[in-house]
């Protein structure tokens, strides 16, 4: 062989070897968990943390698309979106063919089997079992024929008795991959329930085999699976499911292609071999580990934000120059709002509309966002999150602005000119960390400008829920994240029937509001629906039961060797990410 050819030959062999070696090394994606999950039994948990894990090991009938905005549902375990009958009461579903549960000792021979309609109906009945599910049952309450009766029957049965064999009128199996659900009324919101992780499809074998350890031994159809019983407190290692049906999306938002987010379009998911999720409860250790390259991506907290992110004059965010070569960020508005709820049953606030309006006018939401959140938020003029259909752009809500002159005038109208005669008001918080205290200090200064003295009550979640549930508060700083991306989930916060123990903690009751809510609840998005939203917005503006509303931004910061990252609060990013192992090995300090 000629010398040059020999060299080239050796070189290519070497490269191939390196490539093969690289290919042998499993790619690991490391992302920290900030708190322990309670259980991974889909029907017994309801928290962002469990969601994160559930979405990686289980599948639901419907998913949210990863790249497209506004959030839209796409078929998950289904082969296509369900069809609705002419009377709009019966939904027909068709499952994907050949989706398998992962191999697990609970199956005969340890081999997983194909998912069938029976599994779906089993999972739904389990969801409706009142002995198991007290947290998410509301999502299917009064929705499916016969399911409420089933739910009631489970409550009367002894614990451990399996009623999933009983018949539910509205759940019908047609064949191994087809089934129908009959609704009690025309209900466009029902499909959202099938995208909630609580309706993940589980195999009955696993439930029977693991019994009360089922919450630590998920057996699903998701992109990852657990190799052994999960350790709540340590590192959770999830391995790639080689038979996963999902593929990387080919459709995104304009601009996604330019950002390289469509490079893996059509590829089989997941793109990494191992998902590692260590438990790191305090921010400082997590931040330090990220800076060292030991963590691939994480959410951003305020303290680290200031160091790592800079804000461009146009308001957008980018990684600070000194870190620009190492990290990337992606952010989006949260499908949720932060607000201050006023207790309408409070003797001082309840009957005094002018006082409430004065407080609303005195709050400078933009200052809250700029000073304390590094600008990571969007002031809202209605109570619908910024990127959800029905938001303030759709309904043309008038802008809220801090207006001290107006606030002072309203104080006088309220009978407390300059704050004279008004006893100190108390705002309750459910956290006591320094970020919360800083927020309180800021609000206190803002209220002091109109003569209102504000005291703070910093509690923990249990005490806060107890107090607000009993109506023991005047103002409460709270937030609400959507369970599903529909504006109805936010307008229901002020529906009079949702008073405690529901989310209407201030006990707001207005007949006109209720009428508009009930009328608009099940409508499809569009001008007709938005007209009702406008009515409700006007009432909220006038009565001021919720004030100081803003939509926080959700950030993710990732190492440069992580690909496909687009912050999505509804579809866990871990399922779509890619790791460049060579860059990672080089980059870890």
């Amino acid at each position: 062989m000629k010398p040059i050819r020999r060299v080239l030959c050796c070189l290519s062999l070497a490269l191939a070897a390196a490539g093969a070696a690289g290919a042998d090394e499993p790619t690991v994606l490391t992302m920290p968990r900030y708190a322990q999950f309670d259980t991974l039994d889909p029907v017994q948990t309801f928290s962002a943390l469990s969601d994160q894990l559930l979405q990686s090991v289980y599948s639901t009938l419907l998913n949210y698309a990863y790249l497209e905005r506004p959030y839209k549902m796409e078929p998950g375990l289904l082969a296509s979106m369900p069809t609705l009958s002419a009377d709009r009461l019966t939904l027909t579903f068709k499952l994907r063919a050949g989706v398998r549960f992962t191999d697990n000792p609970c199956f005969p021979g340890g081999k997983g089997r194909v998912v069938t309609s029976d599994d779906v109906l089993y999972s739904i009945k389990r969801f409706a079992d009142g002995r198991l599910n007290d947290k998410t049952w509301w999502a299917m309450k009064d929705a499916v024929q016969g399911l409420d009766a089933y739910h009631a029957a489970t409550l009367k049965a002894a614990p451990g008795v399996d009623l999933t064999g009983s018949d539910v009128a509205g759940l019908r199996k047609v064949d191994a991959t087809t089934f129908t659900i009959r609704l009690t009324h025309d209900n466009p919101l029902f499909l959202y329930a099938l995208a909630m992780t609580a309706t993940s499809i589980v195999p009955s074998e696993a439930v029977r085999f693991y019994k009360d350890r089922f919450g630590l031994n998920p057996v699903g159809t998701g992109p990852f699976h657990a190799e052994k019983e999960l350790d709540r407190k340590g590192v959770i290692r999830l391995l790639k499911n080689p038979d996963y049906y999902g593929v990387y999306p080919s459709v995104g938002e304009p601009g996604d292609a330019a950002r390289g987010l469509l490079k893996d379009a059509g590829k089989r998911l997941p793109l990494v071999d191992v998902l590692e999720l260590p438990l790191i409860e305090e921010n400082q250790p997590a931040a330090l580990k990220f800076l060292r390259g030991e963590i691939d991506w994480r959410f951003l907290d305020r303290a680290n934000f200031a160091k790592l992110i800079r804000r461009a004059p146009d308001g957008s965010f980018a990684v600070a120059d000194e870190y620009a070569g190492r990290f990337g960020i992606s952010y989006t508005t949260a499908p949720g709002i932060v607000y201050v709820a006023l207790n309408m049953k409070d003797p001082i606030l309840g009957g005094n509309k002018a006082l409430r309006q004065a407080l609303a006018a005195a709050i400078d939401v933009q200052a809250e966002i700029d000073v304390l959140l590094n600008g990571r938020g969007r002031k809202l003029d209605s109570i619908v999150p910024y990127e959800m259909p029905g938001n303030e752009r759709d309904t043309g809500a008038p802008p809220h602005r801090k207006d001290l002159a107006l606030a002072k005038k309203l104080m006088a109208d309220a009978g407390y000119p300059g704050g004279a005669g008004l006893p100190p008001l108390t705002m309750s918080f459910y956290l006591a960390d320094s970020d919360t205290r800083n927020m309180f200090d800021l609000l206190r200064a803002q209220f002091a400008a109109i003569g209102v003295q504000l005291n703070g009550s910093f509690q923990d979640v249990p005490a806060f829920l107890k107090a607000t549930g009993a109506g023991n508060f005047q103002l409460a700083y709270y937030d609400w994240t959507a369970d599903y991306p529909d504006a109805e989930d936010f307008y229901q916060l002020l529906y009079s029937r949702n008073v405690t123990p529901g989310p209407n903690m201030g006990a707001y009751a207005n007949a006109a509001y209720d009428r508009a809510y009930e009328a608009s609840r099940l409508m499809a998005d569009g001008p007709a629906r938005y007209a009702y939203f406008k009515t409700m917005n006007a009432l909220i503006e006038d009565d001021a039961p919720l004030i100081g509303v803003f939509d926080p931004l959700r950030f993710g910061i990732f190492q440069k060797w992580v690909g496909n990252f687009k912050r999505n609060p509804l579809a866990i990013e871990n399922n779509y990410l890619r790791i460049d192992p060579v860059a990672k090995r080089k980059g870890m300090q």
Partner: protein
Amino acid sequence: MGAYVVRRLLQAIPTVFGVALLTFLLFNAFGPDPVRTALGNHATAEAIANLRHQWGLDQSLPLQFVDFLRQIVTFDYGRSYVTGDDLGTQLKSGALVSLSVTVPPFVFGAIVNVSIALFITRHRDGIVDRAARALFIGAMSVSALVYVLALQYLLAFKLDWFPINGYESGWAAVKYLALPWLIQLLLLMGPDIRLYRTLFLADIDADWVRTARSKGAGEGRVLFRHVLPNAWIPIITQNVTTIPFLILGSFLMERFFSIPGIGNLTIDALSRGDLPVLKAVTVLGALALVLFNLVNDLLYAVADPRVRLS
């Protein structure tokens, strides 16, 4: 001896009952509502009623207290409200982890601190003594939280001598525990050395010590062979009664270093209103304290024949 043990154990019963009563009153009667906490935002009246019934919270308070007493006697603490896990296993594994965090610095610290205290006593009233006293008071004047923050930042992050946090079971845990051990050693030094020094000084001019000295024994020998053996008893007393608290773990270390011990479990339970965990930890802590107090008294009797177990 046997009769004494039995009598002491019987005497412990009112204490444990008192602890149970206090715990029950403070947590069940005044504490947060665990049902509301568990159900969160979407609680409905129906769900609340169901859960209260499942957890036995719809019974009258006296009945709930009887239930609690029964749990204590049978060592069946039920399940966590939040995770649904069996508490027995959780506490056992947590206890082992907590012990791995607190015992090594405790043991090592005892040896080191006794030695340092002996040394200081030997050179008492000199510059070493005074400087040491100032140093240790100074070290104790800084909050433990500050030690953790500063040392984690400096030694783990800036200098990279230790991992920042984390835990692995088995021998791999050592590299994660090294920094918590170091911090605890530092925290222990001040109070322990001062205490031991006081104990040694109490006997330093006793007749029998002076006799030894007058017989020509050097100061070091005097300390080692005459003062120390006598000071063993209070030293042991001090240390044995500390053991129950070792089992409960150091929540500060566990929190900041993400170590899954009982301390971390307790803090989690506090913030989530997980009453069964709190009640179990409190009662077990009390039982452990009773037990080790008894062991302590027995050791005392064995070590010092003058002590009559009356």
